[in-house]
């Protein structure tokens, strides 16, 4: 396995892009990434794209070919990968594997979703495809309901409170104020969250990530090539993925996501790092409870302590382990197929010292955590600055 690094990144703003189409978003992010990497389009050998439900959202499939065409990169091979909300993370991981294997030297990775062109009900049904349609969504479960079932179990087993979950949203909104790409660049209070009304008890509207349009792209290369073409590349030290049952009711435990635990264990083993070595993390806070689960399952806090940790500011910028400096899915926005790639971009910027007012001081190691559905897929990556 060869060492692999990120050499360029491109991101659209996240939000409601009524004026831009799916293909314009992907082209905007992709072209930026190629320019940022300082390579020519002709040097790119393959494309890996992540999109979850473009067929349901805009009636378009065959996204691999669409991306290659829009970026003017025909005839190189281009493929779209789907793993629900982890589509972007899975696309990045497969691109990483292709470069690590020696098959390619320079590869483009994209993630995209255009979610605002359908009604909220239709968006809900499209996103429901991330769960078990036949046995759980069919019975009336929604995605907020699935995470609410996890939240209730965590509250009853560990005493986690609704205010602690609200603290996740408050922190992530505060971080998003300093992220020019974020959908919601405004602070909210615990009271705002508590008063926002139940979607699926105990989860309220402001515990939920929004419906978002956006695209993200990175260029990755073998680290030997990266050192030649890039001033300060960011190495992907590990990219690990794990699977679990599609149906939430079939999980071994409702207070953890086993796929996260398996993926991060492998990532720590591969890198020789421990949770305490990580300087910052972008985690999958599709619902606030999932950031609490993630900070425990990734090993930053003991099981059951995640709620208290966020309440005490341990995951805030300047805290013990800053989590979701970008604003996370909650406030940066969650264009599902783009999220995994956008998380990698935050890590890339943080490790290059380019995160401006949300910069984590002296960051050396970063981690990203991307979840599909209610935890049937998890991708965990670890990154570091590449010393030349």
């Amino acid at each position: 396995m060869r060492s692999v690094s990120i050499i360029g990144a491109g991101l659209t703003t996240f939000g409601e892009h009524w004026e831009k189409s799916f293909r314009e978003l992907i082209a905007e992010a992709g072209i930026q990434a190629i320019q940022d990497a300082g390579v020519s389009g002709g040097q790119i050998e393959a494309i890996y794209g992540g999109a979850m439900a473009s067929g349901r959202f805009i009636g378009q499939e065959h996204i691999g070919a669409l991306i290659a065409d829009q970026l003017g990169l025909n005839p190189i091979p281009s493929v779209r990968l789907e793993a629900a909300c982890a589509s972007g993370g899975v696309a990045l991981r497969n691109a990483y594997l292709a470069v690590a294997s020696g098959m390619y030297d320079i590869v483009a990775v994209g993630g995209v979703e255009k979610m605002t062109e359908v009604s909220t009900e239709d968006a809900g049904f499209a996103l429901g495809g991330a769960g078990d349609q036949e046995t759980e969504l069919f019975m009336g479960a929604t995605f907020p309901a699935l995470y609410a079932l996890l939240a209730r179990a965590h509250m009853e087993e560990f005493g986690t409170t609704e205010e602690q979950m609200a603290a996740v949203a408050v922190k992530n909104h505060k971080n998003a104020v300093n992220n020019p790409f974020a959908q919601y660049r405004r602070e909210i209070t615990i009271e705002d969250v508590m008063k926002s009304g139940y979607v699926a008890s105990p989860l309220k509207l402001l515990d939920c990530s929004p419906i978002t349009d956006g695209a993200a792209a990175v260029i990755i290369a073998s680290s030997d090539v990266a050192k030649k073409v890039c001033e300060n590349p960011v190495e992907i030290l590990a990219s690990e993925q794990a699977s679990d049952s599609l149906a939430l009711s079939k999980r071994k435990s409702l207070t953890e996501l086993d796929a996260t635990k398996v993926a991060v264990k492998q990532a720590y083993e591969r890198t020789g790092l421990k949770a305490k070595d990580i300087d910052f993390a972008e985690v999958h806070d599709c619902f606030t409870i999932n950031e609490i689960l993630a900070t425990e399952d990734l090993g930053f806090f003991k099981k059951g302590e995640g709620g208290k940790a966020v309440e005490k500011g341990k995951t805030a910028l300047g805290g013990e382990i800053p989590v979701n400096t970008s604003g996370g899915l909650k406030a940066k926005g969650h264009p599902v197929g783009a999220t995994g790639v956008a998380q990698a971009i935050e890590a890339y910027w943080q490790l290059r010292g380019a995160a401006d007012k949300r910069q984590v001081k002296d960051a050396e190691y970063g981690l990203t955590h991307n979840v599909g559905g209610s935890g049937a897929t998890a991708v965990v990556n670890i990154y570091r600055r590449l010393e030349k």
Partner: protein
Amino acid sequence: MTTGFPPLLWRRFPERYTLAGNKCETCGTSYFPARKVCPNCRRRGKLVDESMPRKGKIVSWTQCFVGPTGFEHETPYFVAIIELENKVRLLAQLVDSDEKKVKTGACVEKVFRKINDADKSGPIAYGYKFKIVG
């Protein structure tokens, strides 16, 4: 919405009407819905038909205030993860139950109900829901 497509509903009648699942005779684990392979034993497994018990208890629950297509008119409604007496877990709606009695650990029993009629021109879907007993 494709959940109202007749064969999709028809194929699931035994499962949704009578909680028909199966059991691996090698390791003794019950499965609902029925599986084609036992994840514990894989090719050493021997799966035989088994009906699930009708009773169980609530493991976790939520009250949905925003319903998906086909459930808009039912909000707010309860959804729970239920552990049946043979340890099999499934997700279902709770109906005909006193709201105050909806809590983790409460005993529930299977009832047969309409699930939804999302597709106005197609068949109505029926299946299991649960109600609190005792």
